[in-house]
């Protein structure tokens, strides 16, 4: 490698690293001296770069809403897990409770009734099978699984309206909650956009820190959307 090429590589790696080609990067990596110069250059950059002049109070003003946002996200996560757990706990209750009611009702009315209903369900559930006479008992050759399915279907018939209402209410609440959360996110995004715009304006117009702080104070009140 000629001195001219080496100088060109050094100039590029320090002044215009963006224009280094893959081959040039490979050449620098393979050359101990160039690599050493680059590492020294990186060390100089790290050591000589002045510490930024930061206004901690202003930084805090900008950062503070993120704490609330993060806390809200955590609460949403926790409440989501809690809702899922509650769903798991209540679901067996929703399924099993009407079964008991049905059993009690059918037992108190007549012992023949459930069998009749089972046959009706079989007809509707599996149309490929030949239709059974209405009062015929279940045939003996059925697999053990079938009666279980039939029982569940039979059990669900009397309680169908109650379950649907309950599920509808839950679903409606979930949708309402989703809408509220989406609206909150929109308001929150507006808030952050306002803060960003205020900071950019202050930087472009060289406004004093007090003016920026006042602008941030006058931002749309994020508390109205974050119910914490």
């Amino acid at each position, binding site marked *: 490698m000629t001195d001219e090429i080496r*100088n060109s590589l050094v*100039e590029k790696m320090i002044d215009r690293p963006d224009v280094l080609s893959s081959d040039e990067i490979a050449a620098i990596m393979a050359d101990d001296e160039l690599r050493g110069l680059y590492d*020294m250059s990186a*060390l*100089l950059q*790290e*050591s000589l*770069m002045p510490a930024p002049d930061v206004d*901690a109070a202003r930084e805090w003003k900008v950062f503070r809403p993120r*704490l609330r946002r993060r806390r809200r996200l955590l609460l949403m996560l926790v409440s989501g897990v809690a809702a899922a757990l509650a769903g798991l706990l209540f679901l067996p209750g929703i399924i099993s409770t009407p079964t008991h009611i049905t059993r009690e009702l059918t037992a108190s009315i007549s012992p023949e009734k459930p069998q009749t209903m089972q046959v009706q369900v079989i007809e509707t559930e599996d149309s490929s099978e030949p239709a059974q006479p209405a009062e015929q008992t279940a045939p003996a050759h059925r697999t053990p699984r079938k009666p279980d399915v039939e029982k569940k279907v039979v059990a669900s018939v009397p309680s169908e309206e109650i379950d649907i209402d309950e599920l509808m209410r839950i679903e409606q609440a979930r949708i309402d909650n989703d809408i509220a959360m989406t609206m909150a996110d929109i308001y929150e995004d507006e808030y952050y956009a306002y803060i960003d715009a205020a900071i950019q304006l202050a930087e472009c117009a060289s406004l004093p820190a007090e003016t920026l702080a006042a602008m941030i104070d006058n931002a749309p009140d994020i508390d109205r959307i974050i119910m914490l």
Partner: protein
Amino acid sequence: MQYSVTEFEAIYLRCFPPAMGLAVSLLHDEDDARDAVQEIFLRLWESDTVIDNPQAFVIRSVRNLCLNRIAAADTRERFRRRFPLDETSYSTDIEERHLMVQTAVQSLLSGRERQVVDKIYAEGLSYKETAERLDVSVSMINKCIVSALKKLRTHFKTNKP
């Protein structure tokens, strides 16, 4: 979350400037540095464990996070951001290392070399801007830089920073 907002504000006001200084020196970019520092403050805010010395926690965590980000950068990105190619250079205390380099720049380089190094690394000027400010050619700037880097490299081969 072990802190009230007021307590956390006090910690933030106290720890943000040094943490930001460290992050900027490692990442060479103010926005990236701010992002890293804020991420650590969010971790502190969410932490359930009691932290005896929040300032030490913040500084140590910012350092580790920045080094992780540097380690994740590929070679091209390292060149673009002037990150070191070898992370083992971070094995020594960062502040102590900076002091050694600053001392070496002052003691080993000529006046012209110091000027050029200062314009490029401290002020962030390009070769062309530096050449205009110092009223010299761009090739002279490159010559000064190569000469300065060689002197410093030779020095630090025997006195590892």
